[in-house]
């Protein structure tokens, strides 16, 4: 256990903060959590000074998710059958006129959720739902409970193992419906379950369901036929189908991310395109953007709402203007990373940490830093192994004496 070490670091950090913070002071803190493509570990890096804060040993190579609040990072280890909770150490408290930031050492939260083949991991309003494909079961836990170090989850079952997804929605849960005729294929729709797990209404068709995201108060699932768009109606989810426009070429979205600050969705569409989606309109909802080569990864900018980023196999990072629906800037960062070969091979991933865009370069063992304002490369941070998935947490806030 690392508890002792972690708390010692926390005390040291606390002392250094309180000596410099005689009164209210603006503090900026950003942390990068990076998983390795081969080794079971998560490395934590201080994005402000580039120094390594800690390395957490986990059970298998992981994909990473950060919570909306940024207080928790989850390592989903599909092959090892476990989801591990990590307390990021950075939290904010809203005081109306200002926000307070609290910075402690990152540490393992002491929470593990085990099961067969964990896959999609989705947060909605502070509740996390981890879907375990091998069982067709979702295990749901709140952030509050995770940060208390308790592994108290509740379970919601679907009818069969599937590469599925679950999303909590108030007292309801949205669950993917397995393909009964062809159990190895993607789910065929979404059904709504009440608090007790009983289905409400029928199945909302969503063939080849894969990919979901939230943007503001709207949740969306990607289907072969379009999007399922979920919004509130008197406290219950209202679900409608937004079909792909006839003007789009053949294709479908299988990875979806949600805009922050502006409400939109960004999805893949064919190997060398992305699509911007306004889920609130009936016509002109889809705007297709062609990329110079095949797409490796994409991310939205949570600070500069106007921008999203796409990394392509030629080693370029592209700045996407989501208002104009066009590539505004491109920057060569790495050697080519061909999309030939297995989807899970080590390839770059993108995260945004305040005014920096960070791109992992697994085969070189570095993180590339790009200034988000000038869109110029500003530096590298070396990371042992093959740095792969990356998430960032942080921001600015005030600290006060005695806190």
């Amino acid at each position, binding site marked *: 256990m690392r508890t002792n070490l972690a708390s010692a670091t926390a005390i040291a950090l606390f002392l250094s903060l309180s000596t410099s913070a005689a009164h209210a002071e603006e503090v900026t803190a950003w942390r990068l959590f990076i998983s390795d493509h081969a080794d079971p570990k998560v490395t934590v890096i201080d994005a402000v000074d580039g120094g390594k804060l800690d390395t957490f040993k986990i059970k298998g190579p992981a994909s990473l998710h950060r919570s909306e609040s*940024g207080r928790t990072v989850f390592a989903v280890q599909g092959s090892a059958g476990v989801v591990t909770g990590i307390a990021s150490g950075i939290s*904010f408290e*809203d005081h*109306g*006129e*200002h*926000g307070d*930031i609290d910075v402690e050492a990152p540490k393992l939260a002491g929470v593990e959720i085990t099961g067969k083949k964990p896959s999609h991991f989705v947060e909605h309003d502070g509740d996390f739902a981890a879907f375990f494909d091998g069982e067709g079961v979702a295990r749901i836990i709140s952030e509050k409970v995770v940060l208390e170090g308790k592994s108290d989850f509740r379970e919601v079952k679907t009818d069969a193992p599937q590469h599925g997804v679950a999303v909590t929605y108030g007292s309801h849960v949205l669950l993917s419906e397995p393909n009964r005729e062809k159990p190895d294929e993607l789910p065929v729709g979404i059904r709504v379950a009440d608090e007790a797990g009983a289905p409400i209404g029928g199945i909302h068709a969503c063939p080849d369901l894969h990919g979901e995201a939230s*943007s*503001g*108060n*709207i949740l969306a699932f990607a289907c072969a036929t379009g999007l399922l768009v979920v919004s509130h109606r*008197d*406290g219950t989810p209202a679900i409608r189908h937004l079909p792909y426009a006839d003007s789009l070429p053949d294709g479908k979205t299988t990875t979806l991310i949600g*805009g*922050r*600050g*502006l*409400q*939109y969705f960004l999805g893949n569409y064919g190997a060398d395109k992305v699509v*911007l989606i*306004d889920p*609130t*309109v009936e016509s002109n909802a889809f705007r297709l953007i062609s990329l110079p080569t095949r797409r490796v990864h994409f991310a939205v900018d*949570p*600070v*500069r*709402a*106007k921008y999203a980023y796409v990394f392509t196999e030629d080693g370029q990072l592209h700045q996407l203007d*989501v*208002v*104009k*629906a066009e590539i505004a800037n491109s920057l060569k960062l790495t050697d080519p990373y061909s999309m030939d070969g297995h989807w899970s091979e080590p390839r770059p991933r993108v995260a945004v940490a305040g005014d920096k865009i960070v791109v992992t370069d697994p085969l070189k063992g570095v993180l590339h830093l790009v200034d988000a304002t000038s869109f110029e490369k500003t530096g590298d941070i070396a990371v042992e192994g093959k740095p792969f998935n990356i998430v960032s947490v*942080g*921001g*600015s*806030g005030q600290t006060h004496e005695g806190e």
Partner: protein
Amino acid sequence: MSRTLKLAAVMGVITSLPIIPSVAAAENLKVVASFSIIGDFAKNVGGDRVDIITLVGPNGDAHVYEPKPADAATVGSADVVLVNGLQFEGFLQRLVEASATKAPVVELTKGGEVLRNTEEEGHHDQDKAAKGEEGHAAEAKEGHEEGHHHHGEFDPHAWQSVHNAELYVKNIADAFCAADAAGCDTYRANAESYGQQLAALEEEIKAAVAEIPEDKRTIITSHDAYGYFEHEYGIKFLAPEGVSTESEASAADVAALIKQIRQDKASAIFVENVTNPRLIEQIASETGLKIGGELYSDALSDENGPAATYLEMMRHNITAIKGAILGS
């Protein structure tokens, strides 16, 4: 951008083109209004010299509105952007940033009498009124990371006082004059004649309130949208939700309100067009108050509704309030 300059530029184009485009339409001032009530004011001041796009439309809730990339494009190509300010539009800062607009973003509550947000007390007291310029100082703070916004120090619903509506109209006329000097006389004349309608409206409201016995002037709505109405006209409003609809009322807030309703002997309860009616229905059934209808708080109705304009909205509200109280 100066209207005169643009006109000259277009004239140059016209002389070289055999087909004359619709000059009047092309030359109108492009105005973006943040929500429906401001859109209506702008229409009354701008007349046919302006084209108005309203971001948060009829029955929409600007407190929790999520701007789209298309809204950023709209704001980006505007000549004038009209907003309420006082952090009513929680989305404003990120939208303006994303739009990269060069247009002036005009806060229409500027220079007005501004009430403090008395959220803790759950309702507004007249002695909490703060006057003057400080009202628009509370700019949305650049807090931590994404789009999160804070409740303001002030109550943003200033249009609920007709007296303040006159200020909105004056500020709109000033903004239009600055953007289009050639139309200034028209804007001033429009503002003047609309101002007369506002003055008449205010007299109607005061006369209606005077008919309500003083001990029956407490009513319930969903959220604290009527602080200015209360301050100006002497109807006391209690609400389970605060000045923003963003955070839901807690069970404790609702229990406290129910207790207060019994003590204050509230005379009527209303649902609002921008909020979910369920909570009000629950409070009505627990207190035995009959729902007196729907009030329009932060948005107009659609064209076919009873509150398609600001004048209609205010008349509808006071008529509904008076009717429910006197009929109870």
